[in-house]
């Protein structure tokens, strides 16, 4: 079910009505049923995967939780009799029992994700190597469907398990509650990746119908649909035209495609998340934010703190820190410091762990080289800017423009362009082709297409461009307004007719200008006499 389908809207409406008619204590059960139904409707086979993950993570977390309980009881009982060393040894033993359990469960679940997601990637690489080595043998690809949302729910489940291991979260006693946390349907498709501690309160408590909260949720949903249907789905036509025919659309077209894709992705992804969070809000559930006006970032590093936030923090908390502060890495740091001096010794471990993180981020986005190169591209840019930091420092000490508007604007535009360039790997989905197309921007001088009407041949009419421009201005305006406080809050203090005009106007915009339905591409009847 796509967010933009009638089925989905119908599903939400029915769920919504049922939710507030259900006694508060049972509401979470309804959500669980709805989530599994959502999954079932996508493909019944998928249920096996999510159930396996849920059951194994539940059992492992319970086991780890019980060891922790056992430990605290034992220590309390033997508070006086244990020497410090004994206590430490006992704790270490318990920790290692927990660690074993964690490791088995992690390997199993990450293993499932790896097998379904990356087997064909491995096969295709093996095939290329064999071909290169002159062998005619080729392995067959494995015909397997990637279960919906597996990357998201696996991460969510694994995050929960690690939290339990770390003692940050309590192991959930009720397997069905855990099942709901892992399968909560609005976030299945594209996140956000929630933490158990953040979400459990909202998921499992009682929610009475509150007009204000519901309205705010609806407003957010509306805004999400606006971004998705009026902007993203409209500009998609032009993006597809450009990237699907790389031979014809070169030079300046690549630049146009790059910017259009940036807008498309932003509107689509943030719009989808708005819908997700908005739906949760109408149900009285607060979810973690996933974006914080990312295109206003002044560096790539900052951008990644503001774009797809829940994914970024997931990688930082569960991969970056564990790797960079583990004992071998600290040892390695000492070693490099001793042999290569302070400067390298300080950096190498951090750079190494962030290399791993960016490699993982890349491959998590998709099982192909272009995503890996994209991930590592981000890593390279971040490392370079990190290294240039002292240089910037000197520059700013000399020229006092750091806080000037023009300079900040320059930084913002630089970030947008850099990110858009990197995303070309995501666009063309082919590493050599991406480099080639990137090159044509500098070798083929056809910038006249920007004003000679060629842009009107990409599948968008002049009117479409007007709508896109207006939509983009609105996006920027809203982002700027958000700096103060939530735009919905700002609107809420206005008089009723004004509020009504704004929200109903937005609704009409989506209804009339949304790129949906049969009518969109076939906007005219062509009657060919039959």
């Amino acid at each position, binding site marked *: 079910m796509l967010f933009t389908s009638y089925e989905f809207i119908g599903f939400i409406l029915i769920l919504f009505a049922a939710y507030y008619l259900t006694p508060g204590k049972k509401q979470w059960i309804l959500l669980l049923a709805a989530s599994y139904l959502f999954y079932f409707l996508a493909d019944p086979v998928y249920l096996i995967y999510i159930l396996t993950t849920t059951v194994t993570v539940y059992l492992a977390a319970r086991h780890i939780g019980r060891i922790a309980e056992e430990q605290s009881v034992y220590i309390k009982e033997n508070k006086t009799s244990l020497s410090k060393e004994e206590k430490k040894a006992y704790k270490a033993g318990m920790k290692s029992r927990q660690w074993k359990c964690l490791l088995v469960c992690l390997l199993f679940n990450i293993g499932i994700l790896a097998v379904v997601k990356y087997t064909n990637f491995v096969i295709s690489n093996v095939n290329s190597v064999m071909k290169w080595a002159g062998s005619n043998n080729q392995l067959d690809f494995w015909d397997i469907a990637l279960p919906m949302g597996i990357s998201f729910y696996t991460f969510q489940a694994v995050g929960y398990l690690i939290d339990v291991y770390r003692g940050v979260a309590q192991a959930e006693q009720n397997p069905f509650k855990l099942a709901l946390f892992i399968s909560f349907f609005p976030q299945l498709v594209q996140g956000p990746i929630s933490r158990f501690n953040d979400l459990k309160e909202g998921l499992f408590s009682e929610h009475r119908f509150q007009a204000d909260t519901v309205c705010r949720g609806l407003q957010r949903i509306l805004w999400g649909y606006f971004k998705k249907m009026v902007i993203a789905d409209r500009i998609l036509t032009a993006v597809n035209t450009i990237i699907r025919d790389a031979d014809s659309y070169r030079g300046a077209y690549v630049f146009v495609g790059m910017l259009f894709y940036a807008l498309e992705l932003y509107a689509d992804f943030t719009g989808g998340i708005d819908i997700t969070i908005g739906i949760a809000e109408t149900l009285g559930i607060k979810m973690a934010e996933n974006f914080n006006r990312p295109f206003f970032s002044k560096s790539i590093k900052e951008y990644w703190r503001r774009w797809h936030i829940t994914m970024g923090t997931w990688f930082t*908390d569960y991969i970056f*820190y564990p790797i*960079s*502060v583990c004992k071998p890495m*600290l040892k390695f740091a*000492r070693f490099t410091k001793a042999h290569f001096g302070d400067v390298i010794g300080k950096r190498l*471990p*951090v750079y190494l762990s962030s290399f791993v993180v960016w490699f993982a981020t890349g491959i998590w986005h998709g099982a192909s080289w272009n995503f890996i190169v994209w991930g590592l591209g981000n890593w390279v840019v971040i490392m370079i800017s990190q290294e240039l930091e002292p240089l910037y420092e000197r520059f700013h000490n000399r020229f006092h423009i750091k806080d000037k508007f023009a300079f900040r604007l320059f930084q913002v535009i630089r970030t947008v362009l850099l990110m858009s360039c990197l995303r070309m790997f995501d666009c063309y989905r082919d590493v050599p082709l991406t480099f080639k197309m990137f090159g044509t921007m500098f070798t083929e001088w056809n910038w006249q297409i920007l004003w000679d009407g060629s842009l009107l041949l990409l599948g968008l009419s002049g009117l479409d461009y007007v709508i896109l421009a207006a939509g983009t201005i609105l996006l920027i305006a809203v982002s700027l307004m958000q700096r103060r406080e939530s735009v919905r809050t700002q609107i809420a203090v206005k008089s009723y007719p004004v509020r009504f005009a704004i929200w109903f106007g937005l609704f009409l915009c989506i209804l009339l200008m949304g790129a949906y339905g049969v009518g969109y591409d076939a906007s005219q009847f062509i009657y060919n006499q039959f």
Partner: protein
Amino acid sequence: MEELLEILRDLHPEVDFETCDSLIDDKILDSFDIVSIIAEIEDQFDVVITAEKIIPRNFNSAEALYALIQELEDED
């Protein structure tokens, strides 16, 4: 405490670590800083701050961080 403040000042000379108590919440320290700090602490205090201890509460102020170090030293 003074040793710790030195480590911190080394990274961000512009921050007043004695009073600031929102180092993480206000995004003054980023993940790279935290890793450097942990490495330095390990060097100078000989305590290992494991990944599960990296939570905002422990890193929001120099004081909290110092308390963490002492707690870890105690355990040793």
